[in-house]
């Protein structure tokens, strides 16, 4: 077969495929163009809502810096630091996301801290896949309220203790030791590194 008739044969066989690929591509492009701003908006809205729960005084959040946090065994993950701004534009705190291995899968948290990174304002769970009814309780107010106002230093998980007292001892959820410990570990690993990197960049103590 000469080259021209080969091409003709090819087109004869696959013209439908070529035309429909083009049409489908167009359809997908239209759908994407129409909806991707809204998808992005959803993502930002969700993050803002979760961060807003932790730092109620904030009116808006501004992405300040992206840094890499090193987890155990050399794995590095990206962490976004957001500056919480009041209506006048003053800094009322910081929020960052961090992650680490949990019982079933990885746990992603968003942690809020005050403006000098001295006290933790609390955490919210972005994504987790823990055992329903047990590890899932890290999302509940009982466990999360223990983190509000604790000092931003090494936290310790204990099995029994006073869960009303605000200090660096966190009482584990009964029946969900691994998940509780995972949250404490994530905060213990990420917070010091973020503190150090922010000090290097001169962002703390620079509350404007």
């Amino acid at each position, binding site marked *: 077969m000469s080259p021209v008739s080969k091409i003709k044969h090819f087109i004869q066989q696959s013209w439908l495929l070529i035309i429909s690929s083009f049409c489908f591509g167009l359809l997908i492009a239209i759908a*994407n163009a129409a909806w991707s701003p809204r998808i992005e908006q959803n993502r930002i809205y969700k993050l803002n809502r979760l961060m807003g729960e932790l730092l109620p005084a904030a009116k808006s959040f501004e992405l300040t810096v992206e840094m890499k946090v090193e987890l155990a*065994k*050399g*794995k590095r993950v990206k962490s976004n630091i957001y500056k919480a701004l009041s209506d006048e534009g003053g800094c009322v705190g910081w929020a960052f996301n961090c992650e680490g*291995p949990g*019982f*079933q899968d990885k746990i992603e948290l968003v942690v809020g801290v005050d403006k000098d990174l001295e006290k933790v304002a609390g955490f919210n769970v972005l994504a987790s896949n823990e*055992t329903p009814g047990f590890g899932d309780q890290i999302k509940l107010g009982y466990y999360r309220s223990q983190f509000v106002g604790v000092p931003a230093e090494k936290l310790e998980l204990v099995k029994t203790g006073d869960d009303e007292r605000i200090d660096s001892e966190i009482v584990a959820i009964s029946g969900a030791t*691994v998940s509780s410990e995972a949250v404490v570990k994530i905060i213990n690993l990420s917070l010091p590194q973020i503190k150090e990197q922010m000090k290097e960049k001169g962002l703390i103590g620079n509350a404007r």
Partner: protein
Amino acid sequence: MDTLNILLIGFISIVIVKNLVLTKFLGICPYLGVSGRIDMAFGMGMAVTFVVTLSGTLTWMIDHWVLMKFGLGVTRYVCFILVIAGAVQLVEMYVRKFFPFLYKSFGIFLPLITTNCAILGLCLFINLWGIDNLLEAVVLSFGAGIGFTMAICIMAGIRENLNLADVPECLKGAPITLITAGLLTLAFMGFAGMIR
């Protein structure tokens, strides 16, 4: 040393802790259909391992070096499934021509595998977990195949014995297999939390 550690842990986690069939519900159709006899089950498992390693690697490469570079992330699903279908076709032609003995042992399963959720599912999970180096993607894909093979062989072993047991009429076939799979899942739950 660290890389080796991560790879080893990733491999073990995907074979046992995050087994595709028993925890992520992927590949159930062939799991129920082909697990009647151990030799068929092993053949299917080998075919799946072969295809999934190849597909996982190819789709990771295309995703990272083409789709993300040019911002074409929205065509990800179409590209993945076409790559998988194409890879399976090529593999089948190649194996049939050059390795006839291999073809005899698992070749017949190859066309069935294109619609196996496990392959596309694994490619999407690798994308979801944000794996960012090629070696890890290869190891995870291979581990997924090995996990599938292990699960299907265990099931085949149990089903061969179930054939001799006194199963009630309405439970014969798919129902009892599903219940057995459920109990297997329960057993494998004991491995959760093994990898910290």
